[in-house]
């Protein structure tokens, strides 16, 4: 779970953030003024400050917000001047937008606000549809508007070129004022709410921001998206009444409260119409008491009525935004906020504490109980708040000054009670002033008078102290230092302002508390000192008074481990997620642990090592584990039959353990068995699907046959027990223990399972390498889509949801429990992916498009192939590990484009689809997506916050000692990033450096000599110049055209070799790459039917081969190794086939072990590259791990 923030504002207008990993409220130091309200999203926080302006705080990210401005320079040819800027009168502007309709000279571009800055000057774009243009970047055409080409022809009469300039949003992590439109906004804002980020996937960063003005009008902020975080303008939304407060959920839910106490619900909000269309009225939950506050989430609505009662709205969802009924909830609150995952926070009317609703899950949206967040606030105050309290208290201070003797001579209890009858000039009005929020101030003044006055009492002594100093100038009061701020001076007990670190401060605080308790009962002689300590802001800190909370940016769910609830001494306990360990990471290095490790090895030396010749008291024997399972029988017709399964383990001759597994079955009434030696098993693959808990066992022979032993256990648990046991057994028999080595080869299946193999020394031997099918793979916990490594042990992964993960050095996790897993270094990992189904329709002349197809048609609800029926109701998550986390929604991000309702049209099924209807289209389809989530554990830790789509790590030679390891990545938006601070000890690095590109990229790879190659979304390749240790980001991109008529999709660079894969599955080798000409000269075809390539530090080439085309649309992959790759023959000769049936990714970039050298007469046979179409036994492939 990434770290995110809960935002809150206290009654003094100070803004605080509480991190999901944190244990204290941190004041937002940047806030130069007090805020009334804040509303947070993941990437930013909006607020209304006391000057009634709206401010935006965009959280800093390594990925900057860049906006590309473009304009076109147009020229026409004339016989006198050649091409010149003299155009015909009927022509477009000399400088225009792409359409030519808008006049856009370079100097017409202005920065939209002071939060932006130019990144550089204008320059000419010399890339035209993936091809480099001639110098100058001109493209030619016969006339405007027409088709442009990069080559000048005899009839080219006009030309144009594109100018680019980037501007960057610079106001990160700071409150930047949103320029107000004075003409249209007559009155100040009183409420604000942002949300709507889940209405559509694209464009990312899109937000809906709703605001309420003091006059009760509602405004919608137009045009907020990733590249324009501030939005464009305010649009007024017509209303049936006057609104006091509004709430916008993450998706399409918007509710508001009217002055009269009714609620209004926005209807018609959709992807195309985020503003919605109309309002519906919902009556207040209680007939005589109106609503004062509303908070909405994805599928929930919470309301507070004037009597502070809390209500939950039943039956709310996208289709029924009004819901169906009210449920009264426990608790009295003044406001409620709903954040991500429908989690709920509230501020209690009784003590103004922030409460978190525990136990809110998708099945139990109303949660279970309120739990107070009890963490302390940080110990500092910004100047603004300081000035505020000063100004407020100066007058009051004078009053209390006269009471000094009274204070010192009474018990602390009396002191607290003393101001309970406050004189008229106590600073009571300050609270309404600060919050300036009608109903909160009302509550404060009416209901909380006792509290208000107590508050005064708390703050008073500090002022008193200040006063004493300024007026009498001696140290009569028990203060020590010169007071810069009223609260900075204090008694020795006041630890609040000292610079001790957090933990210490907390324990001291606890001690202080204890002392104070005793002070209550002890004699009065020392009361004066204690009184001050107790009544200091420290006392106030125990009960900070909150005015507003916003959880929109706070990513928690009911499973999150939060340390918010007991502020003392929980640090070491809450983290022990693993059942087997109190051993939290700081303790790993503790002296006591070191001592135990050292003494145990010393004991072994003393008591065992010298006596190894002694006989063992207990002889080793055989251990058998048996069970019942089902087996996918070898003979036809294939089906599941019941079998007995047994694993016999024994000690091998050299003391290493070994075993045999037996499968006992009946063959025509005859008892038979099948067996496999554990030391021959090469891999155990779990194949979870929604009907059976199965796994596959491969041996080299079975890999060749593409026919594993497939077994099904009765329950998932049983399957995991067996898998864990067999896996330990296999590892034992091969003497493999602990984490994978740095040289390990990593691979990933289409299910996201992670496997790792230790390369044998002969794996890359020429000409007789270890056959690929003999490689032993073991599973590592976690769930990834991509994994990349290098030979110093740095491993990065990317999840299906594009989250970046770093390998922690552990092993096990997932279903490996107990001994097959390390105790530390294992963390929770989640992943999210979408399941897609298609709605298909056919046109008929009478009713237009309907869901009545021809009898020969595909199912009206189907999978992508149309072969299987997939309705919304019967489609299940991919396996029991996955759970649904969203509803079915139309997916607009389908290749080929869609219309406004998500439809794609075609002449007939199956055909190529397009996003608009033509006369020839008789069928249409649209894609529905539903998200599902998996939670598992593994040796992976998240690298927040940027989502990635590709990553590459410099492959090092075997003995190289690189300090800083270059790591490059592509964000899921296509930005190129360079990771700084990556070393073997800090594999996660420290920060991203954004490397500018003119278009989004999709694949990247760095070679051993820091040669960086990348593939752009348009399918062309780029080489990054001048990348070195001194200049880790290089200086410029060199455009390299793709092979003719092919769009490249992936690149991998080894020591010197550069390989790419195109979208048609061709593997290309870059010819002519030399140190002096690193871009190379041409692409040479190596093989077809390739899905992915990984080139290692020895220039070894491994691929995932696609299956035979056409057998199954969701084709699965096979790991293959290129044979006979040698320095003089970098393209190799043929493929060796390894494990297959659902493999998706492999990286061999950690394996830098040079093979032992064997000299043999050179091979004369240089047969042409063998096509991979001859994959054997493909039918079996699909059955092992059908995606």
């Amino acid at each position, binding site marked *: 779970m990434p770290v995110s923030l809960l935002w809150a504002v206290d009654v003094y207008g100070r803004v605080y953030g509480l991190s999901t990993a944190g244990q204290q409220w941190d004041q937002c130091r940047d806030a130069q003024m007090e805020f009334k309200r804040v509303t947070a999203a993941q990437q930013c926080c909006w607020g209304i400050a006391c000057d009634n302006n709206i401010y935006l705080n965009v959280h800093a990210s390594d990925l900057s917000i860049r906006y590309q401005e473009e304009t076109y320079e147009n020229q026409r040819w004339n016989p006198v001047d050649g091409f010149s800027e003299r155009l015909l009168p009927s022509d477009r502007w000399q400088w225009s937008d792409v359409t030519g309709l808008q006049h856009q000279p370079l100097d017409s571009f202005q920065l939209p606000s002071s939060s932006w800055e130019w990144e550089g000057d204008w320059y000419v774009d010399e890339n035209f549809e993936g091809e480099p243009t001639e110098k100058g970047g001109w493209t030619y055409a016969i006339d405007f508007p027409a088709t442009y080409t990069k080559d000048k022809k005899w009839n080219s009469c006009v030309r144009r070129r594109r100018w680019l300039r980037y501007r960057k949003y610079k106001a990160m992590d700071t409150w930047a004022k949103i320029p107000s439109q004075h003409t249209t906004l007559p009155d100040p804002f009183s409420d604000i709410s942002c949300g709507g980020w889940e209405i559509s996937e694209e464009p990312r960063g899109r937000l809906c921001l709703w605001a309420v003005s003091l006059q009760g009008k509602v405004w919608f902020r137009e045009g907020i998206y990733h590249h324009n975080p501030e939005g464009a303008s305010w649009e007024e939304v017509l209303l049936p009444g006057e609104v006091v407060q509004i709430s916008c959920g993450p998706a399409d839910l918007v509710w508001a409260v009217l002055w009269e106490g009714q609620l209004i619900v926005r209807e018609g909000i959709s992807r195309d119409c985020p503003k919605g269309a109309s309002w519906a009225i919902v009556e207040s939950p209680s007939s005589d008491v109106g609503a004062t506050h509303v908070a909405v989430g994805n599928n929930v609505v919470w309301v507070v009525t004037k009597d502070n009662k809390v209500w939950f709205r039943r039956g709310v969802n996208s289709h029924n935004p009004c819901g169906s009924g009210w449920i009264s909830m426990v608790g009295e609150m003044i406001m409620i906020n709903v954040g991500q995952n429908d989690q709920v926070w509230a501020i209690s009317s009784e003590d103004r504490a922030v409460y978190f609703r525990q136990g809110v899950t998708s099945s139990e949206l109303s949660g279970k109980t309120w739990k107070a967040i009890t963490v302390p606030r940080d110990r500092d105050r910004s100047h603004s708040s300081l000035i505020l309290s000063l100004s407020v208290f100066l007058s009051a201070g004078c009053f209390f000054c006269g009471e000094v003797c009274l204070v010192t001579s009474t018990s602390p209890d009396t002191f607290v009670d003393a101001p309970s009858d406050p004189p008229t000039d106590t600073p009571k009005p300050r609270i309404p002033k600060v919050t300036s929020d009608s109903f909160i101030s009302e509550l404060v003044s009416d209901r909380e008078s006792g509290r208000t006055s107590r508050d005064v009492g708390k703050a008073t002594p500090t002022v008193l102290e200040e006063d004493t100093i300024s007026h009498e100038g001696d140290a009569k009061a028990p203060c020590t230092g010169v007071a810069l701020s009223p609260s900075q001076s204090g008694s020795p007990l006041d630890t609040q302002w000292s610079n001790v670190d957090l933990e210490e401060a907390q324990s001291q605080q*606890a001690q202080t508390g204890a002392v104070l308790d005793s002070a209550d009962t002890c004699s009065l002689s020392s009361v004066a000192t204690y009184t001050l300590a107790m009544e200091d802001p420290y006392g106030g800190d125990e009960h900070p008074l909150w005015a507003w909370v916003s959880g929109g940016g706070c990513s928690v769910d009911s499973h999150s481990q939060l340390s918010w609830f*007991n502020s*003392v*001494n*929980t640090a*070491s*306990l*809450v983290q*022990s*997620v693993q*059942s*087997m*360990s*109190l*051993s939290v990471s700081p*303790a*790993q290095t*503790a*002296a*006591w*642990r070191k*001592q*135990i*490790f050292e*003494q*145990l*090895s*010393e*004991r*072994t030396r*003393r*008591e*065992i090592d*010298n*006596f190894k010749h*002694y*006989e*063992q*008291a*207990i002889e*080793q*024997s055989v*251990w058998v584990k048996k069970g019942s399972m089902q087996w996918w029988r070898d003979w036809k017709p294939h089906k599941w039959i019941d079998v007995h399964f047994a694993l016999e383990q024994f000690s091998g001759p050299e003391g290493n353990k070994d075993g045999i597994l037996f499968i006992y079955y009946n063959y025509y009434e005859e008892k038979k068995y099948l067996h496999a030696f554990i030391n021959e098993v090469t891999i155990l693959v779990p194949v979870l699907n929604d009907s059976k808990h199965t796994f596959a066992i491969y041996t080299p022979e079975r890999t060749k046959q593409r026919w594993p032993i497939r077994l099904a256990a009765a329950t998932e648990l049983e399957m995991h027990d067996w898998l864990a*046991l067999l896996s*330990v057994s296999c590892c034992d028999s091969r003497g493999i223990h*602990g984490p994978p080595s740095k040289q390990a080869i990593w691979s990933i299946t289409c299910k996201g399972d992670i496997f790792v193999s230790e390369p044998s020394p002969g794996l890359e031997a020429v000409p007789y390498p270890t056959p690929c099918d003999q490689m032993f793979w073991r599973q590592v916990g976690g769930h990834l889509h991509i994994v990349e490594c290098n030979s110093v042990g740095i491993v990065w992964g990317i999840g299906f949801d594009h989250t970046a993960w770093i390998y922690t*050095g552990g092993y096990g996790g997932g279903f490996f*429990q*107990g*001994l097959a897993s*390390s*105790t*530390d270094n294992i963390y929770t990992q989640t992943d999210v992916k979408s399941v897609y189904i298609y709605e298909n329709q056919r046109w008929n002349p009478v009713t237009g498009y309907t869901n009545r197809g021809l009898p020969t048609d595909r199912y009206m609800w189907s999978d992508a192939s149309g072969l299987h029926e997939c309705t919304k109701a019967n489609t299940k998550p991919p396996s029991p590990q996955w759970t649904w986390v969203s509803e079915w929604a139309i997916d607009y991000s389908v290749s080929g484009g869609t219309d406004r309702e998500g439809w794609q049209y075609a002449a007939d099924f199956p055909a190529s689809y397009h996003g608009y209807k033509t006369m020839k289209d008789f069928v249409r389809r649209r894609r529905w997506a539903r998200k599902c989530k998996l939670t598992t554990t593994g040796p992976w830790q998240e690298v927040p916050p940027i989502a990635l789509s590709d990553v590459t790590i410099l492959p090092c030679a075997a003995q190289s000692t690189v300090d800083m390891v270059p790591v490059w990545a592509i964000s899921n938006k296509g930005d190129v990033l360079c990771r700084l601070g990556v070393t073997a000890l800090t594999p996660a690095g420290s920060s991203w450096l954004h490397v500018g590109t003119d278009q989004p990229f999709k694949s990247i790879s760095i070679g051993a000599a820091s040669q960086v190659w990348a593939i752009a979304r348009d399918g062309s390749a780029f080489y990054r110049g001048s990348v070195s240790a001194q200049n880790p980001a290089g200086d410029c991109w060199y455009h390299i055209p793709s092979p003719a008529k092919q769009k490249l999709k992936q690149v991998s660079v080894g020591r010197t070799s550069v390989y790419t894969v195109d979208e048609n599955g061709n593997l290309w080798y870059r010819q002519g790459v030399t140190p002096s000409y690193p871009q190379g000269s041409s692409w040479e075809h190596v093989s077809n039917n390739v899905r992915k390539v990984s080139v290692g530090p020895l220039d070894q080439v491994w691929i995932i081969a696609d299956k035979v085309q056409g057998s199954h649309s969701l084709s699965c992959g096979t790991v293959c190794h290129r044979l006979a790759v040698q320095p003089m023959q970098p393209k190799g000769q043929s493929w060796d086939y390894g494990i297959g049936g659902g493999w998706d990714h492999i990286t061999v970039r950690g394996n830098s072990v040079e093979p032992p050298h064997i000299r043999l007469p050179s091979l004369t046979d240089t047969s042409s590259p063998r096509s991979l179409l001859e994959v054997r036994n493909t039918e079996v492939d699909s059955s092992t791990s059908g995606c």
Partner: protein
Amino acid sequence: MADDKDVLRDVWFGRIPTCFTLNQDEVTEREAEAYYLLLPRVSYLTLVTDKVKKHFLKVMRAEDVEEMWFEYEGTPLKWHYPIGVLFDLHASNSVLPWSISVHFKNFPDRDLLHCPSSSVIEAHFMSSIKEADALKHKSQVVNDMQKKDHKQLWMGLQNDKFDQFWAMNRKLMEYPTEEGGFRYIPFRIYQAMSDRPFIQKLFRPVSPEGNAYTLGDLLKEMYPAAITNDGEQKRYQVVIHGIEPLLETPLQWLSEHLSHPDNFLHICVVPTPSD
């Protein structure tokens, strides 16, 4: 980096080299040779000495043989204490191999329990596990186990099968994360130089404030004399599995990693050797 798992292995595979000699007083037909064996620290004497018995019976007449028992420097060795505890308690600073006398006569009924068969050891072992789980989980875990699971624990110990034993024992070592440890720590503190049996009381792993208690906290409460104060000469060694963990070691961790298979943390307090 060394892993906590390795501690479990080291504890399980701890061995004490032992030299068994027949007591002088036994009547033999010919001279008995000493018998050398690596004894598992976590097992029980009578469980692992079949070979010793067989060896000495070869030189004895059947009528001279009664129940076998062991003695070290005049002290009869209680078979129902784990072997490692016996060694740490009585012989921790002596020369290896550990020299044990074997007797077949004059069974000291006052000092030792009889051990007619290994089923007695099994009963003792299982009752210890149950007692420990009563302390740790109100017996919930052990009661949820099936008969065959109990058997697996016992067979694991009997046959020295670490994996087999721990596959089941790890369930006994689980606890709710939010509580930070077991309900009570099953421990026993043994004193050399004392005839009193071990100390065993209720002690929680975590203080009411949520602090993890350490080995030092436990001793302070149970056996303050064992702790060396500042400026004092060290009088006692606190030995667990032949090592002296630091007093600041968290008790919960010790219980999870340095407990014997019977799930008790056996702590020996022995005098510091005078040299």
